[in-house]
Structure formats: C-alpha cells, structure tokens
C-alpha cells in the first residue's frame, strides 16, 4: 500500500499549481494528471484519500474516474467548476455521484477548497465555525415549539441588518433560515417504521418540540460570510435525497412539490453544506457571501455533502 496522497485531475496548468499549493498544506503528497485517462492510469498505482477533478470534463468519463477512485478506497471526490461553467451543474447533479461541488472564479479557491479538503481528510464534519474566521461569535437558539420559527427568522433579519448588512443579505438569510428550520421541524422526524409523521402537518400549526424533536439554529458573520446552521437530531436526510432535491428542474419551471425548500435554499445562498450522521443528526449550513465588491461570488452556488464515516471501536 502506498503513502496517503491526493490526486488532482485538471487540464489547466495554472489551476493545477494553485490547487497543488493549497492542498500541500495538508502534508499529503499531491499527484497531478492532465486528463481523465491519465488520472485513471495513476489510480492503478495510488490510493488517494481525495480526488479533485475538473467538472467540465465529460460526465460519462467523470463517472469512470469516480468508480476507479472508489475501487482504490478513495473517501471522496471533489469537483471544481469555474464561474463561467455554471451550465455544467445540472449534468453533474444528474450523475448522482458528485458530493462536493465547488464553483469559483478559477483558479483561486483557497478558502472553500481548504475547508472541504480538511473535513474530508479528518472526518471532522460538524460546525459552521469551520467556515468563519477564528473568533467569530456564533449565536445559538434552540426551538422548543414550531411557531418560534417566524419569530426567530424575523429576529435574525433584524440582527443581520443591525450589523450593517444590506436588505439583500437579510432577506436571503430569512429565506434560508425559514426553509431549513421548517425542513428540520416537519420533514426530519421519522418513526420506527420510517414514516415522516410531521411532513403533512400544516406549517402554521403549533407543535411542541421535546428533547427528540428540538431544532438548533446557529448563525454568525465574519464580514466575509454569513453562516446559518440548522440541526435536527433525527439524521434522516441522505445523500441521494439531497442530490435529487438540488437537481430538480421542476422547481425552476413550476416551483412545486416536496424538496422545493432545499432547492430554493441552494439557489439563495453561495454555498450549501450538508453534514450527515445517519440516525443521529443532520446539520445544514448555508453560507451567504457578504463581501463587496463581490469578487469571489459566482452566479452558481457550491454544495457539499459530507457523510460521517462509521467510527471503529
């Protein structure tokens, strides 16, 4: 077995070098392939913990690379897209295998790439603090009844505005927090038969949230990102359901059906992060870029799905 490493598959030399420098901070050896064929050949000799690949490469070939990496025991594949390549996102989502998509003005993507890589390598997934500058305060509230949602969302908007953020940021924060809390209160709870027993209940009906049903809201802003984190303690959301929800085209056409809340949340923030511990908790973090001028922002959002690996006793 070879030494743990990271494999980059990208045709652009400047991007290769930038990504290599960033990933070099992990201490792992970084191998580079110019194209998918070379990447697959290298995989025959490597056991990378992480594969970072250019998302503009043809979808069918990407799947072959993902399969080859999985066969070598690779924990995760990260896909990069330049800001101008947003049209590729539906095809990538349709693959159903891209768990980490970073959309960014290329080739600079230091913050997102570093955090995503460290989370994948270390298996330390939870907490919005990973995305904010050290020292940023996170405000925490636990919902004990369902109708607290409207109060909390309104209060969040007021506090965001009080920190000098624009009405645009405040309205995005409201939408994201409302949808994520609503999802955690009504869609997450499941009984022993797998029935989501609160899914069809009217959203304006008062529901007490006991220890099992409580929902935690945390948020913080470091003047780069406003992070909104919502956690439920059922852990019923899975990777398949998430990628399906993000890929839905009928949300764009008709805005209908279940899963619309997640799809709207994705389209309303700059990065959406899912941290999943099956049967234990689901944590969703929405990051809204608040910088001006918005040099790092793109018209297409990034997403990450992290699944907690089973711990060995």
């Amino acid at each position: 077995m070879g030494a743990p490493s990271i494999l980059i598959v990208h045709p652009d030399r400047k991007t290769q070098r930038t990504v290599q420098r960033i990933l070099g901070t992990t201490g792992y050896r970084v191998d580079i392939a110019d194209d998918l064929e070379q990447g697959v050949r290298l995989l025959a000799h490597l056991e990378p913990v992480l594969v970072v690949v250019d998302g503009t490469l043809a979808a069918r070939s990407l799947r072959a690379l993902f399969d080859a990496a999985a066969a070598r025991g690779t924990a995760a594949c990260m896909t990069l897209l330049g800001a101008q390549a947003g049209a590729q996102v539906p095809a990538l989502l349709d693959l159903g295998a891209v768990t980490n998509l970073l959309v960014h003005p290329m080739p600079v993507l230091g913050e997102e790439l570093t955090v995503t890589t460290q989370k994948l390598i270390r298996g330390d997934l939870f907490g919005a603090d990973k995305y904010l500058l050290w020292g940023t305060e996170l405000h925490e509230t636990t919902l004990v009844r369902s109708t607290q949602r409207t109060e909390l969302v309104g209060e969040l908007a007021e506090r965001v505005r009080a920190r000098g953020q624009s009405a645009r940021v405040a309205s995005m924060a409201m939408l994201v927090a409302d949808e994520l809390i609503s999802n955690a209160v009504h869609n997450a709870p499941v009984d022993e038969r797998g029935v989501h027993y609160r899914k069809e209940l009217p959203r304006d009906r008062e529901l007490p949230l006991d220890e099992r049903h409580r929902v935690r809201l945390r948020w913080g802003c470091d003047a780069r990102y406003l992070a909104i984190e919502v956690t439920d303690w059922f852990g019923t959301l899975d990777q398949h359901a998430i990628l399906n929800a993000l890929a839905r085209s009928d949300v764009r056409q008709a805005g209908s059906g279940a899963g619309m809340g997640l799809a709207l949340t994705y389209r309303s923030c700059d990065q959406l992060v899912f941290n999943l511990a099956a049967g234990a908790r689901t944590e969703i973090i929405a990051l809204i870029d608040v910088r001006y001028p918005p040099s790092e922002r793109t018209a297409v959002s990034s997403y990450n799905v992290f699944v907690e690996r089973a711990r060995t006793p």
Partner: protein
Amino acid sequence: MSTTSDSKSRLTVTPQGDALVLAGAIDETAGLHDLLARAQGGRLVLDLAGVTFINSLGVRDWIRMQAAAQQARLDVELRRVSEPLVHQLNMILAARGAARITSFFAPYACDACGREESLLVDTALYREQLSRIEPPPMACPECRSQMAFNDFPERYFSFVSGESV
C-alpha cells in the same frame, strides 16, 4: 384602512389609490387568493415594495393566485416589486404568471462611500437597457457618485428581459 386576510397572517393588505399595498411576509398564512375578489374593473394592481419575505409555501400560494387570476382573465400589474420577490420571480418561471411588472427594486452599491441601497427601476423608462440585461445607471443617494449594480445582471434581470437563466 388596513386589513389582513387572516388573523394569523403576517401580511397586511391596504388599499391605496388604484392599488392594493402588500407589506410583510408571504408565507403559509398569506391567503393570497382572497386578493382576487378585490380586483377593480378587471384589474388587480399590487404594490409590493413592503414585502420583506417570501418562503416556498408563500411561492406556492403566489403561483396559485397568479393562475387563478389568469383563469379569471384579470389584468394583473405588479408595482415596486421588492428584492425578495424578484429573486423568486427569477428562480421560478411560474411565479411570473401573466402579470405586467411596471417597476421593481434592484440592489446597488457605491464604490465611493460603501453605501448599499435597494433602488427603484422603472421598466418602461429603462426598457432598452433591461432588454440587453444591462443595469440602469443609478446615482448614490448619499454622495451622488455612480453606483455599481450589486448582483449578477444576467440572473437578476432575467424576469423582465424574458431570458431564462
């Protein structure tokens, strides 16, 4: 006179001139369908500057209201559409319905003094720029410098340009 469509509703509806002025949140309690009964002479004019929030259930209600208005052959005019609603109109094609949008708010920022502001855009006045997906020029209300558009034009103006992003 100020009325709400339901005691739980966080949306207020106030008649003002030929328009109904909506303010607050459009969510699961909004009951937008009730607005249709308040149309006058086949026209329903909605002033939306005060709408601060719309969630996915509010969007569903909004789409149903638009569809019912089309079925009833009502001429729907949307005035001073706020940014949260513009985002939904851009994200969801069905939310546009057959309504005419005569003005809307758009986000601008001033490079000179750092002020961020939501500014009103008249669709008739700036029709040419909007059809080319160009942000109309705006002056900073504070320092009078030229402001920069603070979003992605191809995304923000798609609902008035007829383009799909």
